[in-house]
């Protein structure tokens, strides 16, 4: 069995190499005829009669054209921008400082040592720049050079900026567009991947890491985005998979297209690998700029505060009527979120995956906050495997980067059934519980309606060190719904209807929790924004530390 798994995984890796070989393989031939002109400059730099200054100029020029005009045109034809165009859009004008423009690959096999196979800067552009004035380290893989394949030099360039990003405390953004490993380099390329993986792990929780997949990303390469905090994709032009459709066909005999297997839709709705998808390169990069504004630069930085035009004491009258009278009727948790946060601006993470929980970033009085909310509109807002994992990862990101967490609770419990139990809802549900419990950032909780059973405990309850826990008048904090409870308490007895009414009277309201101090106050929904803004100011100086440990052991 073990051998079989090994075989499969190595096959996967092999395919990573194979598919990259295809794309890389085409390039020298396809471009052979026209290349002479395009890369004349590149060839010239070995000619010794040129001065150093001239050679520098020529190499820089060659670096800026990447794989040459033809391949740039091909890249554009695919609806994709070039590595440098992307950086120009992502960063503030004239802020990009490039590193390692003169680095070349060191492969001497298969004719790779020839001058025409050397591109200054190789297949990635790296450096640092600013987004709205704030420092960021970036790498942008260049598909026009050997299909963006990863050579030892390519990896080394990425590692260099990652090391520096960690040292100075600035986020790393990777723009992925790569066919895979540089097959000509063999194990050196694999080593390069591992070097990057290691740095991804070391940087995790130190500086925010964001991956934007803007082309293929297959084989071993996928694990770098998977290790980063956020993975975004571009619709129709980006793919993420361990093995491509061909290998899938040969191994499992499934017929599947690239898009179905690893397109943006798959990963944002089915697998949960990607956190969001955007229409095209421009849309993605502009949104990424906007997203970046929410993030602190490192774990030493407090959550950023921007100028805010939305009054912090604004009342939200619509919230007083938003929770329907019948406790079985759904409403949209996003309406509550939009009403409360600054300027109705909410950057939702994974909006199409595990929709029964809503997570994302917003601001309160200008300060970034993380929002977690059960979504009654989908599956009654219950917690299941996917929503627990989605919530847990988000909560841990916020905690790692000092972003206060605001939780809106309307949860009828964990989803029952064999599918969930066999899938391990116990250990997956534990992740969300774990994440909320270990978080030491300011935690504010608002129970809008149901908070039933274990799910009540999980959702940032007072018992898990919630700093401020509010209940709306419509809140029902109880072990379970009235009907189920009465069936257990009064099993086989008559007068169930009366008992149910009594149970509702006793427990289907915020009082049992409020009299025990499990909620700090019962508040008028329309005042929620005002209260939270005030609490966040108070909690800005919150200091809480967990006991020393090498690292915690979250139930993975």
């Amino acid at each position, binding site marked *: 069995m073990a051998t079989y798994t090994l075989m499969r995984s190595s096959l996967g890796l092999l395919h990573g190499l194979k598919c990259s070989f295809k794309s890389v393989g085409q390039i020298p031939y396809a471009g052979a005829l026209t290349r002479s002109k395009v890369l004349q400059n590149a060839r010239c730099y070995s000619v010794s009669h040129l001065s150093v200054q001239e050679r520098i100029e020529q190499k820089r020029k060659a670096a800026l054209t990447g794989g040459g005009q033809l391949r740039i045109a091909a890249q*554009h034809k*695919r*609806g*994709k*921008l070039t590595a440098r*165009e992307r950086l*120009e*859009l992502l960063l*503030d*004008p004239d802020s990009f400082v490039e590193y390692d423009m003169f680095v070349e690959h060191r492969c001497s096999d298969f004719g790779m040592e020839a001058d025409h196979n050397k591109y200054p800067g190789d297949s990635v552009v790296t450096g640092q720049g600013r987004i*709205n*004035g*704030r420092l960021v380290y970036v790498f942008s893989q260049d598909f026009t050079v050997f299909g963006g394949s990863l050579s030892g030099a390519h990896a080394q360039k990425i590692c260099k900026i990652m090391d520096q990003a960690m040292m100075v405390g600035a986020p790393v953004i990777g723009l992925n567009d790569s066919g895979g490993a540089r097959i000509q380099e063999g194990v050196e390329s694999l080593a390069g991947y591992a070097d990057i993986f290691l740095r991804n792990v070391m940087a995790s929780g130190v500086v925010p890491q964001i991956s934007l997949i803007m082309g293929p990303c297959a084989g071993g390469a996928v694990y770098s985005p998977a290790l980063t905090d956020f993975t975004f994709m571009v*619709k*129709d*032009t980006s793919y993420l998979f361990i093995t491509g459709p061909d290998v899938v066909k040969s191994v499992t005999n499934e017929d599947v297209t690239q898009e179905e297997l690893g397109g943006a839709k798959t990963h944002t709705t089915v697998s949960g690998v990607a956190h969001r998808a*955007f*229409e*095209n*390169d*421009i*849309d993605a990069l*502009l*949104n990424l*700029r*906007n*997203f970046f*504004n929410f993030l602190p630069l490192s774990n030493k930085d407090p959550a950023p505060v*921007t*100028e*805010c*035009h*939305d*009054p912090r004491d604004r009342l*939200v*009258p*619509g*919230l*007083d*009527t*938003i929770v329907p*009278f019948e406790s079985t009727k759904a409403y*949209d948790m996003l*309406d509550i979120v*939009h*009403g409360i946060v*600054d*300027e*109705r601006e909410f950057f939702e993470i994974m909006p199409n995956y595990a929709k029964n929980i809503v997570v994302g970033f917003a601001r309160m009085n200008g300060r970034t906050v993380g929002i977690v909310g059960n979504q009654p509109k989908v599956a009654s807002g219950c917690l299941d495997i996917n929503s627990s994992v989605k919530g847990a990862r988000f909560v841990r990101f916020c905690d790692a980067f000092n972003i206060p967490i605001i939780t809106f609770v309307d949860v009828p419990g964990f989803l029952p059934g064999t599918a969930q139990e066999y899938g391990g809802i116990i250990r997956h549900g534990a992740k969300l519980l774990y994440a909320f419990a270990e978080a030491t950032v300011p935690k504010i909780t608002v129970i809008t309606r149901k908070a039933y059973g274990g799910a009540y405990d999980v959702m940032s309850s007072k018992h898990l060190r919630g700093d401020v826990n509010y209940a709306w008048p419509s809140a029902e904090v109880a072990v379970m719904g009235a009907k189920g409870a009465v069936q257990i308490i009064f099993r086989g007895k008559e007068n169930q209807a009366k008992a149910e009414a009594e149970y509702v009277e006793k427990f289907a309201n915020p009082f049992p929790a409020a009299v025990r101090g499990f909620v700090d106050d019962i508040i008028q929904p329309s005042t929620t924004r005002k209260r939270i803004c005030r609490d966040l100011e108070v909690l800005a100086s919150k200091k809480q530390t967990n006991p020393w440990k090498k690292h915690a052991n979250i139930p993975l």
Partner: protein
Amino acid sequence: QNKCLNRPVPFSFPQTFDKILIANRGEIACRVIKTCKKMGIKTVAVHSDVDSSAVHVKMADEAVCVGPAPTSKSYLNMDAIMNAVKQTGAQAVHPGYGFLSENKEFAKRLAAEGVTFIGPDTHAIQAMGDKIESKLIAKAAKVNTIPGFDGVVKDAEEAVKIAGEIGYPVMIKASAGGGGKGMRISWNDEETREGFRFSSQEAASSFGDDRLLIEKFIDNPRHIEIQVLADKHGNALWLNERECSIQRRNQKVVEEAPSTFLDPDTRRAMGEQAVSLAKAVKYSSAGTVEFLVDSQKNFYFLEMNTRLQVEHPITECITGLDLVHQMIRIAKGYKLQQKQSDIPINGWAIESRVYAEDPYKSFGLPSIGRLSQYQEPLNLPNVRVDSGIQEGSDISIYYDPMISKLVTYGKTREEALKKMEEALDNYVIRGVTHNIPLLREIIVHPRFVSGDISTKFLPEVYPDGFKGHMLTAGERRELLATAAALYVAAQLRSQKFLGDLSRQWELCVELDKGVHMLGVSRAGNNYTVEIDGEKVEVSGEWNLASALLPITINGKHRNLQCLLRTAAGEITLQYLGTSFKLRVLSKLAAYLSKHMPEKIPEDTSSILRSPMPGSVVAVSVKPGDNVAEGQEICVIEAMKMQNSMTAAKTAKVNSGQDISYLDLV
């Protein structure tokens, strides 16, 4: 400031009632409660379960739930309302308009319980409620009437026969009808048959009475109505006219008082006929006599509404009377305090009915949703808003989609219209589609401004349907400049920590397929935007959180609203009532966008989508049937209007999905 806007009532009141129950919902219930409060009368609201947190319920002293959401089970549920009256000990009931307001059974049952019905006596309701009978009485009272068939039409074939005798065009309408429901115009035999079917169904569902009548249809008429007020002692007054010609599907959209069309003689003639009709049926309370007026100022009696009209506020504005106050006094048996000579025409009042509907689809198909943001323009003087909703309210399929009645007043018509422009621009409605774009266009249209209107106004002015405001070159520049300045203001805010802010921006703004290169320079909050060689100066506070965007463009004050602003540069602005989608990109992003792949939108012509939410009342096809383009597939009922859904192309019906209540088709 005009008195009507505060709804004045004398400071001290003669004793009327201690407690009044309002058998209605929405804005009219709130309207009645307001006057009751001023008169020191306790109020009882009734409501359906979905309305339990509605504004009228909150405003009233007491509230009683009378049943589930469908009107037939709540607001039309006489038993439940009678119980509510008994339970709360209300001495009188104000029915508002619609629902039970013209239901003689209800009035009778109240009388039997010794409860006062605030409205006319049952015999007047009966006489005027039946279009056939009312026409006969009107004829007898020497009121001008329309030629037509004075009887009930039995079936579609008889309808065709009668129509032939009167001569096309004819109007088929419900005998018990009102408010445009159960009404169809027909130009040939085929339409007569179809119209007969629709009208009788609508009449049955709306009024529980499917009797229809037919009369000559007066082409291109104005719809002008006279407000009358009569007491129980044989005194009656006419309170001038209301011009209600701007209609879509026989429902009024914009009303004004007085009318630009009437001269004092015609006005008096109409007023006197209205009063003589009221006297003929021993009418008491407020009532409205509707007339059709042709281009020669010939007027014909249409019907009498034995209730408070939706558009009563404009009469209040120009006469200074509070009609609800008068109705309550009259119901208690007091005599009218005014004489005909006391009734003035002071200034001009305009009412726009703000509806939750999409004006781009047949001038308004109902839409539903939650009012995520809602702000009435009450900060402006001489503006009155009668509404029964607030931020967070739901507009549901169960009830009328009216959001509010926006009334503006001025010494002159011009002043009132100017105020209406401003009020519409300052009205913030988010979450539901609304008809402000259409209202904003109507009130500035040269034909409307000159008073050249008829009930055909909308189809004549917009023969291909309403398409929103058409921008002039200057307006286009203003809009582009505003979008660019707003974009820069937002960009600058996210760079607040940068010391030296950029002062020059090169932007590319896209507006309905037109692409413009703009240069923007900034000094403080003032932006200079250069568009195609023209300079536009835009300044404002640039509050990015506010729904309203008041700015000054080239010295002119404008109220815009920002409906959407995304990270990818999409900006949607409401400008002159209509919302415009723009995209602002940096020069670089705009240059690179030529490489972006084009996305093909989903082909939906083989899917039948209901243009509005509602319930399916009839399905005419089966799975496997072949349908031709234009063939009726099903009938949707929403907000009490029946709409036939037709196939968009020749095709075969594929799946037989169950269509149930509330399904979106």
